[in-house]
């Protein structure tokens, strides 16, 4: 498994536990009752066989000619082994169930039952009524004050506040929430006040969906699980015919076969290993996904993830850290770097975008602290507008810059302003002036004429796939800020892994083609869609599916929702809107878009584990045949001992095979719960590797195992 950024953080729900404790033991015994077991046809048959052999042990005379009274101790041994086989299987179930329950429990903790302040409008005035969260309904308004817990998933209508979502996401820093943002049920408001509209009824949140899914009794079998079950039933039918025929022949041909030996052969041939572990494998897939803080709404979605052959990767957040970061100030002739840097600094003072912040950081790192910060005041701030594609600031006389309100960056800037004040020694009589920054062509249009080198600089930056941003002072372009995309650490390896598994990564970005191409080729992606709007994702998914590809994508905005719903695997960010989370079939609580790749790997791992245990289980039968065959008709035809290539004793051959058949179940429980280990590789090499380990190994291992048990038995 590729390294997957394991969960961290103290506030996270408990990690799934696997230890066998008293409760699990008790549960596993309760599950052995025939009524409970009937849902697992293979193990149910094993239990029936136990009752039959137990009856032989109690009253062997009733089973003559297929039983011998003197063999009673052997019947007891066989019966006990059969019972233990059943118990091992219920133990696997109980363990998986415990893991799932602890997941469900930790999920339920997210749904805090609190008394909320429901807002009701009464005769022109608003009042709040204390209401338990279970009585809230979709559309209700709630008032959330400092310290309040968000009762259910909701959407902010009024106010800006910091909200602590650490319980859900593991992110310890409180998040700023403004109107339109989504609130997760269970989060806590840690500053200011919000009014929010409830967006889900109690019991309908995606957390509830997840809880329902991990509770295995309510979990519908996935299509693949159903198909595997059919194979198991088919094999069971075949082996039933075989054993009944052998029994019939044994009597009519006078072969003197013993019923208990035939039953032992039957149980050994039955796909007990996969039959016992199948439910645990499916359940643990869900739990493993949750271990990575991803909530899947159906088991089917996880399997589909394994089939993905196209991943749509949003450039921002998945491939690159966030937005672009300023890396260089390039002055035009007649200007200095510090002049450009200071101008860029001033123009970005109120620009709270990641780019703006990175400009300030770069200027600070380089020591370009404009003295105007204390001598002048912004008389006008030009917000970025799509029509002019610039933003800027107009400076006039005043008492210095005020700090932007609210968040963390405000504090940083306060620190910077003090620093600037210390470094400015004298008050300079500065006059009013205006700084604009923006797309080079917009600046060129506003300025009329541009200095020599303008085009050359812009072109060379664009050609490198980076973004130039021009700075103009009083209408005169003075320099360029070079902005660069910063790749997420490890993204190249992840893209490489995806490609190795035969999956096509497609990068989606709003960037210009040149920029897009540069980033894509930097991480090794050959397909990209530049200048894409969120709505385009729907079109892209549609086009991929029309070519019968299985597409996975991530999304967070409301305009991503149609595409998320259409995609075969849609992973929504928990920080995204309710519509997006509703439409997607998985939600990442940590809101890390790069996790889409892990989802695909986990899906593959789940299918591989199921396949490996199935193949192993069937391949095991060959050795068991060789162990038991010589014994069945040993009385009539001692020549059949030619099959006894392991040199086993008569009784111990049967017991060894049966015991191996039983103990292999608990031995494979960790593999089933943890999943088959794999390194990303092509489909064919994964297949070859697993076929060698679990297919060929499945033929060889039981020969060794049965012989070892035989030796042990003979020692005892």
């Amino acid at each position, binding site marked *: 498994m590729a390294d997957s950024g394991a969960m961290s953080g103290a506030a996270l729900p408990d990690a799934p536990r696997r230890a066998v404790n008293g409760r699990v033991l008790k549960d596993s015994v309760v599950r052995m009752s025939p009524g409970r077991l009937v849902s697992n046809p293979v193990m149910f048959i094993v239990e029936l066989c136990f009752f039959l052999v137990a009856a032989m042990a109690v009253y062997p005379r009733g089973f003559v000619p297929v039983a011998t009274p003197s063999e009673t101790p052997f019947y007891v041994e066989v019966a006990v082994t059969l019972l233990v086989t059943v118990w091992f299987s219920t133990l696997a179930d109980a363990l998986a169930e415990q893991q799932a329950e602890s997941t469900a429990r930790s999920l339920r903790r997210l749904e805090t039952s609190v008394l909320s302040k429901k807002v009701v409008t009464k005769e022109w005035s608003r009042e709040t009524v204390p209401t338990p969260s279970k009585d809230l309904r979709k559309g209700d308004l709630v008032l959330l004050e400092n310290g309040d817990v968000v009762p259910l998933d909701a959407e902010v209508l009024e106010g800006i506040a910091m909200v602590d979502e650490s319980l859900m996401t593991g992110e310890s820093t409180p998040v700023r929430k403004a109107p339109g943002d989504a609130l997760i049920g269970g989060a806590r408001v840690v500053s200011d006040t919000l009014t929010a509209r409830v967006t889900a009824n109690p019991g309908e949140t995606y957390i509830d969906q997840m809880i329902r899914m991990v509770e295995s009794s309510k979990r519908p079998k996935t*299509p693949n699980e159903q*198909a595997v079950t*059919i*194979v198991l039933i*088919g094999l069971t*039918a*075949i082996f039933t*015919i*075989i054993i009944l*025929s*052998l029994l*019939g*022949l044994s*009597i*009519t*041909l006078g072969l003197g076969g013993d019923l208990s030996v035939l039953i032992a052969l039957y149980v050994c*041939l039955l796909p007990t290993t996969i039959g016992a572990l199948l439910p645990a494998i499916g359940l643990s897939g869900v739990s493993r996904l949750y271990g990575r803080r991803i909530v899947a709404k159906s088991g089917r979605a996880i*399997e589909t993830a*394994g*089939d993905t*052959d196209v991943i749509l990767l949003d450039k921002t957040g998945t491939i690159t850290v966030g937005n672009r970061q300023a890396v260089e100030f390039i002055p035009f002739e007649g200007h200095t770097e510090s002049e450009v840097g200071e101008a860029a600094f001033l123009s970005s003072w109120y620009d709270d975008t990641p780019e703006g912040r990175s400009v300030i950081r770069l200027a600070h790192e380089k020591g370009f602290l404009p003295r105007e910060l204390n001598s002048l005041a912004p008389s006008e701030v030009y917000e970025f507008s799509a029509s002019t594609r610039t933003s800027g600031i107009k400076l006039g006389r005043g008492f210095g810059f005020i700090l932007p309100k609210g968040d963390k960056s405000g504090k940083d800037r306060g620190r910077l302003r003090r620093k600037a004040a210390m470094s400015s020694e004298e008050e300079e009589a500065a006059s009013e002036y205006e700084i604009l920054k923006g797309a080079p062509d917009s600046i060129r249009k506003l300025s009329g004429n541009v200095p020599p080198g303008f085009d050359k600089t812009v072109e060379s930056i664009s050609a490198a796939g980076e973004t130039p941003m021009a700075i103009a002072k009083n209408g005169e372009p003075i320099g360029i800020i070079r902005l660069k995309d910063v790749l997420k650490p490890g993204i190249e390896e992840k893209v490489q892994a995806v490609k190795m*598994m*035969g*999956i096509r990564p497609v990068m989606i970005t709003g960037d210009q083609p040149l920029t897009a191409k540069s980033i894509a080729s930097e991480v090794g992606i050959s397909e990209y869609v530049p200048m894409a709007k969120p709505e385009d994702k729907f079109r892209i998914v549609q086009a991929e599916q029309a*070519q*019968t*590809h*299985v597409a996975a994508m991530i999304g967070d905005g409301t305009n991503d929702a149609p595409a998320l719903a259409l995609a075969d695997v849609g992973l929504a960010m928990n920080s995204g809107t309710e519509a997006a989370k509703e439409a997607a079939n998985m939600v990442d609580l940590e809101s890390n878009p790069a996790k889409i790749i892990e989802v695909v790997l986990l*899906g*593959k*791992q789940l*299918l*591989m584990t*199921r*396949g*490996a245990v*199935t*193949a192993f289980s*069937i*391949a095991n*039968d*060959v050795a068991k*045949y060789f162990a038991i*065959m010589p014994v*069945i*008709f040993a009385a009539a*035809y001692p*020549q*059949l001992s*030619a099959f006894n290539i392991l040199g086993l004793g008569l009784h111990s051959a049967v017991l060894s095979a049966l015991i191996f058949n039983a103990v292999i179940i608990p031995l494979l429980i960790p593999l089933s719960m943890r999943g088959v280990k794999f390194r990303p590789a092509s*489909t*064919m090499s*994964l*297949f*070859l590797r*697993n*076929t060698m380990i*679990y*297919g060929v190994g499945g*033929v060889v291992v039981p020969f060794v195992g049965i012989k070892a048990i035989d030796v042990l038995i003979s020692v005892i």
Partner: protein
Amino acid sequence: MITLLQFISVAAILGVTIVIAWLLAPYVTGVFTGKSSPLDRLFGPLERAVYRILGVDPQRGMGWKEYFFAGLFVNVAQMALAAVILTFQGSLPLNPMGFKGLSWDLTFNTVISFATNTNLQHYAGEATLSYLSQMTAIQFLQFTSAATGICMGVAFVRGFVAGSKDLGNFYVDFTRSITRILIPFCLVAAVILVFLGVPQTISGYRAVTTVEGAAQSILVGPVASLVAIMQLGTNGGGYYGANSAYPFMNPNPQSNILEIALMLLLPTVLVFVFGQMLGKKKETIPILVGAYALFGIDLAIAFIPAAPQGAGIETRIGGFYSVFWTVVTTAVTTGSVNTTLSAMHPLVILSAFMGMLIQSTPGGKGVGLMYMVMYVVITLFVVGLMSGRTPEYLGMKITGRDVKLVMIAFLVHPLIILIPTVVAYAGGFAQAVGVGTNSVGFTQVLYEFTSAAANNGSDFLGTAANTPFFNVATAVVIFLGRYVPIGVLLALSGSMLGRKRNPEAGLKTDGLLFSAVLVGSILILVVLTFLPFLAIGPILAYLQGHVNFFG
């Protein structure tokens, strides 16, 4: 063990047969894809006349149900017709030897046996059937049953072809496989056989006086044409009770080799047709490699003991070629024999069992291919998951329903072989015809039902099994063994029509790696199912030191 020369001759015969099959395959593919050919001028008017008489619209495609039931209807109608002829042959013309009509149970057995391409014979033809019966009930059914097999196989493939809308029209396929494949191929084969000394006449048995003065009846008849279709159509029903051990059916080593090649020809052609119709010639690789690798294993087992000599072996042909023939005839479910099976070493019989239990090495024409695809689907499903994707075949996801269908198809075989075998002993029917309860006797009974279930037709019991129990039991087994898997697998193919196809990012099936896994998985499946029974049959006989089954 075999000598180097023998090894080379076996390899050469198989190699030449595969090459000829490869050369003929494009023609056969053309017949079923409606490709225009110079032969249209010859066959076109005849075929159109047939369609007009039958009232068939040759353009109308059929779904799997309609196709299957059309085939079943035609087959059952032919059974009924043949039953009338066999029952009343005593009163019908072309009966110079004055044979009486057959008993009801023998008739029941014989018509089902021949209409299903099985040709299990509980009678000796030369002493039981009139010329009319031989030419209509026997020879005609050999053409139609072979054609039915080809049609079902071709229709099955159509379901997997991208862009197919239906499985084709049964009546059209049926007509064309007779006019354009079986008749021309048989004509060529029959002419060569006549040159090799096989008689072709309808002038009655010749009474001659031997040099020693004894009177002898020379049992001739329209033999060459029958031999051609019985081998090419993997039928196996002989003109004479002794089948291809009789000099007029298989006069010399040359005819023996030719007939071996004829048996293998059409099943191998269809393996190539599979890839060609799919438009993915490489998909033939696993089918071909799977079939011939398993066939090679069968041959290796059969050639372990020294070639039999003496009783039951035709000296014209020799022990070695008798063994080779026996493996081939069971591998393609023909069932014609050139020796008595009782003369064979237990390991040869074990190898024969393998051929009949696997049924696709390369199996009967059409159905062998269907079975191999069935194994491919089971294998893909079980091991394909290990590649980390939902298993796909030809880009199509294998669903729970597909798995259910292939499991049913696979389950039919153990059911219809094992249950009647147990009943034959439990009811005393086997003991009644003189079959023992030891390994030799058990092998014979198990072989009878395995041969019936696999629609092979070779058997140990021969006319001894002409009892109501064996006649009816084997007839029922034959019927189920023929139509249930065909119906179920056609349903599988029908459900592939128009199914969403992913670009083939999954497990690649068109290479040697998958072929090897396929071979392993088929061996495991068949061994898991039948090993205990083979163990108390031929394997036990071998371990007990038997070198043949006369005892």
